[in-house]
């Protein structure tokens, strides 16, 4: 936190394939209000993400009140997005949008550990909006650029890069290939 008080968390651009692998939690400070971060394999320390993809499935899994879950696909894989009663605006959008549709999501990455000990990563949507194909394309390029930048720094000495390397033993080449493949998929069309 900066001297002049509250600073908004940046929304990181992360591909689905990378977010799926993310399970390293981090916290600055010890009190219960310290923000929770998720460090990804390429060293993005995120408390908020911005993703754009195709909504392919959605389901209301709530019992008492609505609780929506959606599957959003990008060139590398799928994101799972949730919106419940505390995200009424996002839940509304998910409720009324019929897949398939390009959708932009700004939200908090959350992790859930199953009984078997697997960590599942999903995004709790703060806001969700239907967008056009041009926005989706732009996002893919944006996410590719940021991922490529993080890969460049991954071998360096930045604390997040070091943590990511130690925890995930990240295969940078695999991620480079992912970035390239995502970009190629844009050209193929």
């Amino acid at each position: 936190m900066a001297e002049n008080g509250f600073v908004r968390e940046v929304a990181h651009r992360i591909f689905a394939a990378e977010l799926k692998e993310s399970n390293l939690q981090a916290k600055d400070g010890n009190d219960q209000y310290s923000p929770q971060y998720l460090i990804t394999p390429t060293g993005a320390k995120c408390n908020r993400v911005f993703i754009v993809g195709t909504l392919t499935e959605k389901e209301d899994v709530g019992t008492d009140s609505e609780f929506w879950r959606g599957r959003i696909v990008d060139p590398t894989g799928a994101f799972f997005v949730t919106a419940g009663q505390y995200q009424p605006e996002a839940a509304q959008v998910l409720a009324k949008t019929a897949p398939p549709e390009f959708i932009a999501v700004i939200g908090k990455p959350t992790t859930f550990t199953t009984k078997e000990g697997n960590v599942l990563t999903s995004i709790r949507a703060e806001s969700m909006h239907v967008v056009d194909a041009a926005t989706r394309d732009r996002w893919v390029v944006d996410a590719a650029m940021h991922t490529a930048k993080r890969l460049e720094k991954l071998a360096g000495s930045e604390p997040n890069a070091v943590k990511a390397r130690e925890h995930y033993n990240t295969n940078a080449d695999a991620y480079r290939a992912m970035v390239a493949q995502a970009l190629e998929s844009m050209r193929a069309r």
Partner: protein
Amino acid sequence: MKQIAKQIEARFMELGIKVETSEIESFLKKHNVPKSEFFAPRETPLVKVSDVKEDGKWVTVRGKVVQLWEVNQESISQVGLFGDESGTIKFTKWVKAALPTVEEGKNYIFKNVATSEWQGQFSIKLNKTSEIIPVAEEIEVGSTPTEFSGAIVDIQSGSGLIKRCPECNRALVKGACGEHGKVEGIYDLRVKAVMDDGEKVQDILLNREVTEALTGITLEKAKEMATEALDQAVVLDMIKSKLVGRYFVVSGAKLDRFILVDSIKPDVKPIEEEIKRILAASAAPIAQEA
């Protein structure tokens, strides 16, 4: 009187003693001498606003009142943005200064104003000893526009169709002005948004003209929408659905944490080149390793 004062001052200067303004003021009070008589309007240097880089200096500036803002303090009569060829600076005119009212878009010389600094931002204050001289000539304001491109990730509350206080132009909260209480507000349209390029966060402010042009919702249409739905929030929802999650390029004057946007366009930079650039850059290290 003036002569005596000057002599005293000269004498002090000779002795190398710096007299604090507050000491002089209390001395004057004791002897019942009006301050304006003692502090002869000294000629302060005419400076460019971009050269205001020190706290507590007396300067004279010549330029245009670019914008007037909502006043939210009783002691302030007017506050806004003053600009000349070199850029813009915030100005504050105290009520106590008893100076004439300035108008947006008009040109003036602000004589004998005090500079001040707060958290690295400079501003000028017009007080009792300051003078406002209207200038007929049109002064070009050199904008040092800031550009930012990224995605809009949030629209803040207080955006959309809002009501302003007819007295002070401040946005009303639940139909009441913080200063003037319950008032019959005037409708306005604005957007306070947050942009984000994946590395930095930038707050932006869109006024009515910019909002209308960008969203295609005019103030009239917004009012109709709100009346029809019996809810002001429909306008905000519509604005959100048109802006959030999309890429834009904005430019405008930077102020505190905001960019006061004069131009906002969807980002339509061709992505093909960007794809090539990233591929080339990330392919290189792989090729080396192979």
